[in-house]
């Protein structure tokens, strides 16, 4: 009997792989198709420097997409991404200009970003503020704070090493991209291997059933928004390195790009669905479109239109497929 069971579970495992593969298959195919097309259609796409460029471009968006996927799995949303990135960018730039050691600046801004995430989660759980509203408020507050602190002006005079870091590579891969790799591995691990990950999906599927199964929902919700906040902080630091100054208007629209990438990668706004790899693939599609349209000399204004079209088509296909089941 036990032998029977084992063979059963083996069959099931392969079935499972096939199933999750399916959700992301479409988007992976889109990525491959675009890369093949651009490799043939342009001379410069498949060069080391351009690929490095794409990887640099995808990093911040990728981190945001992975973070917001975690939030979306709980059936939540986070609209404060771009504003928090800007606030962290301003604070970090200010600290560096004031001569604070880099490591200390990093610690402080990460703590602040995580704290902002806590505030989001706290109001969402404790006062049942809808995530859309709570994070919309944070979006407004963080952007206002960034403008207030900077006086609406860009902050210059950051150490050269900051800029060098973002243009540098390690093992031929841009430094920035390594952060995304670590974030993806961390998030996949968190979602797949830990009890916290199981609870995140359970809360996203049915908070009442989760509560009646003894899960501390507050801990899960607040934890999720804190992790998300931490990641926006990381994005803010990397953004600072990339633009080598503090810009209070930076990050505008990042939340929408992140949500689009997450949804492209198979996250469902109804909760309980989504993965870090999927979010990465979604972000990669968008970064490829931006990169490709520059190489193809397409009017840059087309980029957003193309992203919108791909988003609506992908989700429609996905909906049709689940409906059929």
């Amino acid at each position, binding site marked *: 009997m036990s032998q029977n069971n084992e063979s059963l579970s083996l069959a099931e495992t392969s079935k499972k792989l096939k199933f999750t593969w399916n959700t992301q298959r479409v988007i992976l195919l889109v990525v491959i198709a675009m890369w093949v097309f651009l490799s043939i259609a342009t001379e410069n796409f498949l060069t080391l420097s351009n690929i490095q460029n794409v990887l640099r471009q995808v990093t911040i968006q990728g981190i945001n997409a992975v973070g917001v996927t975690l939030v979306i799995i709980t059936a939540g949303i986070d609209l404060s991404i771009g504003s928090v990135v800007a606030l962290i960018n301003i604070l970090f730039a200010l600290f560096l200009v004031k001569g604070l050691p880099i490591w200390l600046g990093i610690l402080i801004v990460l703590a602040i970003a995580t704290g902002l995430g806590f505030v989001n989660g706290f109001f969402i759980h404790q006062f049942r503020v809808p995530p859309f509203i709570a994070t919309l408020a944070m979006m407004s507050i963080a952007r206002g704070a960034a403008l207030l602190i900077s006086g609406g002006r860009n902050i210059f005079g950051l150490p050269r090493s900051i800029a060098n870091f973002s243009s540098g590579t390690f093992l031929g891969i841009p430094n920035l991209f390594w952060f995304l790799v670590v974030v993806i591995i961390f998030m996949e691990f968190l979602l797949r291997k830990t*009890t*916290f990950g*199981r609870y995140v999906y359970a809360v996203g599927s049915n908070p009442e059933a989760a509560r009646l*199964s*003894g899960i501390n929902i507050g801990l899960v919700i607040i934890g999720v928004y804190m992790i998300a906040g931490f990641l926006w902080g990381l994005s803010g630091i990397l953004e600072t390195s990339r633009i080598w100054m503090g810009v209070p208007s930076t990050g505008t629209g990042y939340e929408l790009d992140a949500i689009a990438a997450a949804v492209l990668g198979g996250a469902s706004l109804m909760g309980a669905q989504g993965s870090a790899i999927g979010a990465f693939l979604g972000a990669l599609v968008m970064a490829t479109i931006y990169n490709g349209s520059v190489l193809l000399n397409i009017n840059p204004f087309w980029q957003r239109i193309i992203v919108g079209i791909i988003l609506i088509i992908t989700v429609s296909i996905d909906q049709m497929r689940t409906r059929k089941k």
Partner: protein
Amino acid sequence: MKSENNFDNSVIMRNITKTFPGVVALSNVNFSIKKGEVRGLVGENGAGKSTLIKILTGAYTPDEGEIQIFGERFEALNPIISERMGIAVVYQDLMLASHLTVYENIFLGSEFAKFGLINKKAMIKKTEELLRSLQYDKIINPIDKVSNLSSAHKGMVAIAKALTKNAKVLILDEPTAVLAEKEINELFRVIKQLKNEGISIIYISHRLEEVFEICDTVTVLKDGKVVGHKKVEETTEDELITMMVGRDLKKEMFREREIGEEILRVENIKSGKVKNCSFSLRAGEIVGLYGLVGSGRTELARALFGAEPIEEGKIYLKGQEIKKLSPSRAIKKKMGFVPEERREHGLALKLTVKENINLPIYSRISKLGLVKTKEELKNTHNFIKSLSIKTPSIYQKVENLSGGNQQKVVLAKWLASESEVFILDEPTNGIDVGAKEEIYELINELASRKNAILFISSYIPELMSICDRILVMREGTIVGEVKRKDFSEERILSLAIKNKNNKVGVHQNESK
């Protein structure tokens, strides 16, 4: 309208038969009601009352039989014809749009409008007239939001809404379940007024004393058949109860077991509408809890598990008082809870069988927050096997399973967490016969392994076939207990239905 005058009856239903797969819901039912008659319709859960009503409102098509409404013949109705013929239902849960105002609700779908522009004034005026005719013009304002009204006033709005559609036959489905005494009298005043205007009223209620107060005649349904039709002056509550009960007992599921020590003791619990509840469960015991809709049985179950706050009273597990009860604490103390709404409260439908089964025990099968996947899989396979859960894979999403298998997944959760006290709220609700028997067997097995079980059900034969004793709830409190040797559907039902001061020859708990 022409033929109306020639007929005394507003509705005649002849030889109505309706079957669902595996069940005869109505068999050869004859039912008629005169103009200005108030007719009580009583029967146990599942006797066929709602099926009969649904045929009259056109929601269901009968397999056989014919319906005459004011002399016009129909083989089947649909909701539009039924409404046009003047049939209207006021449901217990009222079906009002609570964010809209009173007048918006009353004219929902039939707004006074010209070129799509709404004539608000005219509608408000008409609403005022309607409310005045019910003598509610000073009490309900047409521009109040429905969500701000009391249940009684919502009920009036629903009745007013029915009247705008020129209702001639008004069906009231358990209208008093959520009303206070005074509000019930108000409702009765309105019913009498409508009756005098020649409107026929079908009054469905479990509360027999109300039937005697307001109805002219009463029809008793049992197992889809009309078993009695009486004028209220010519019958008694006891006679009606005798007619309602006596259904064929299902297979006897009871097994002799050794009953051990007390595991759970509840003293004077108060939580929401639940008050003054005391009882105990012993190891190896299956205790039934019966009550009508609205009696507080589900609220009691949720309070026992810590899902609702307990305002007063004490809960002891194995002699130890548990303070600040919450679901997670209840689980730690080895309690398991199968909620009534399996899909809403019991399962994470979008997750897999594996994840659902292990949900309460992840903290146990993990180390430093990492899930021990081997144990997770082992558990899952064990319970799929021991409960014979039919699923193509352990990775199947629970939403794709049948009702019975979903329920087994919920039970598996509490087996996995090694519960010793099981609170089962309608565990066989909405699952097919075969799966039901499997669940009964499972419950028996749990009891024989020295677990204590509280089995809540609104179906008496089910409780009688498996329980050691049955507690009966009415109006938020436990009003009696019937031992296995004294089991009779009649006793249990009369405890649940009758007023506290009516003696029924069953020893009752001291009431306050």
